[in-house]
């Protein structure tokens, strides 16, 4: 038996092998395109199910975070501390009066250390402390200001109020002096003359 034929089909084939080859040749690989049977239904796999699951998880996580934040914000005390700072009225008036109230927001303090609104324009003395109305300072969320800007805004607000008060005081002073310098009652004088 020539074994080379079995390896590389060289040499003379063995008649028995040749016979087997012919019998099994019908089953030899025949290249032909794939034909899918018509009765076979192709079902696409649904990909949106895992996406929906992820979206639901994210939504739940957001909801939980929102609820937690809300509970936390309710727990945190929102009381305001009121400081009164006395000041000296401008000369000519001779009274000691309190300045506009400086309010510290504890919430803000926790976030941005202590907020101090300096009013360094006037002398203070301990005997001139008065009670004053409490004012609520807008929270950063309400004003839309960053903590640094908020501090600046509070200082500006104090200065603004002081400036406006001074302007108002001077305007009224001018008005009073004008009234004082005008003749007291012309009609009465005319009556006397008549």
């Amino acid at each position: 038996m020539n074994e080379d034929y079995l390896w590389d089909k060289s040499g003379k084939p063995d008649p028995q092998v040749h016979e087997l080859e012919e019998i099994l040749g019908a089953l030899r690989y025949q290249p032909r395109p794939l034909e899918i049977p018509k009765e076979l239904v192709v079902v696409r796999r649904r990909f949106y199910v895992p996406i929906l699951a992820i979206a639901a998880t994210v939504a739940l996580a957001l909801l939980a975070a929102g609820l937690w934040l809300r509970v936390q914000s309710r727990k945190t005390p929102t009381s305001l501390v009121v400081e009164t700072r006395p000041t000296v009225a401008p000369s000519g008036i001779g009274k000691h009066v309190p300045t506009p109230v400086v309010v510290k927001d504890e919430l803000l303090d926790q976030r941005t250390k202590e907020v101090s609104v300096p009013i360094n324009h006037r002398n203070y003395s301990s005997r001139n402390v008065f009670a004053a109305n409490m004012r609520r300072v807008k929270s950063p969320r309400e004003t839309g200001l960053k903590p640094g800007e908020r501090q600046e805004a509070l200082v500006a607000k104090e200065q603004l109020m002081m400036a406006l008060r001074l302007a108002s005081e001077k305007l009224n002073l001018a008005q009073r002096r004008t009234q004082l310098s005008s003749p007291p009652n012309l009609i009465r004088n005319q009556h006397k003359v008549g």
Partner: protein
Amino acid sequence: MKPLSMRKSRLPLVALLLIFAATLTAKAQGAKIQLSNLDHLAARASQTVDVNIDERLVQIAAKVLSSEDSDEAKIKKIVNGLKGIYVKSFEFENTGEFTQADVESVRTQLRGPAWSKLVNVTSKKDGSVEVYLMMVGDQISGLAVLSVEDKELTVVNIVGPVDLEKLSRLEGQFGVPELGIEAPKPKTKN
């Protein structure tokens, strides 16, 4: 899309509007008076008030003013649209700490044609108070108050549209008692 000729015809109008707006802005900025030449008085003064609030600070200060609080709401209305508030006030221990030249440095700026003197009250005893206004049309675009006393010099300069009536009503608010000098009581006849 509008034809090119139509757009071209609107250009002069837009330019005029821009010029008008720029003029108004310049006028409003012109209401600011220079107070830096009074800075040297701070060293001699026993008490000094120095407030410099420009437009940006006015705007951010307005943000923290509450609309719910009646006093702050009033202030918010007053400061709405203001371009700046500048105050220099000096109180001295003794008389003669500031000179007439210091006062004139402010007064000369207020003698310009843009300013008109609204009130001028002079008294040998109490000093003088002068109120100046800058007008653009019918609207006030600036206010200046110059108060000179023996031991006190105060200059208030408000830039922008200011409501004098509302401003004068502010005294006695903010939880602060009224500061005004009481008018002398009429003498009763015996």
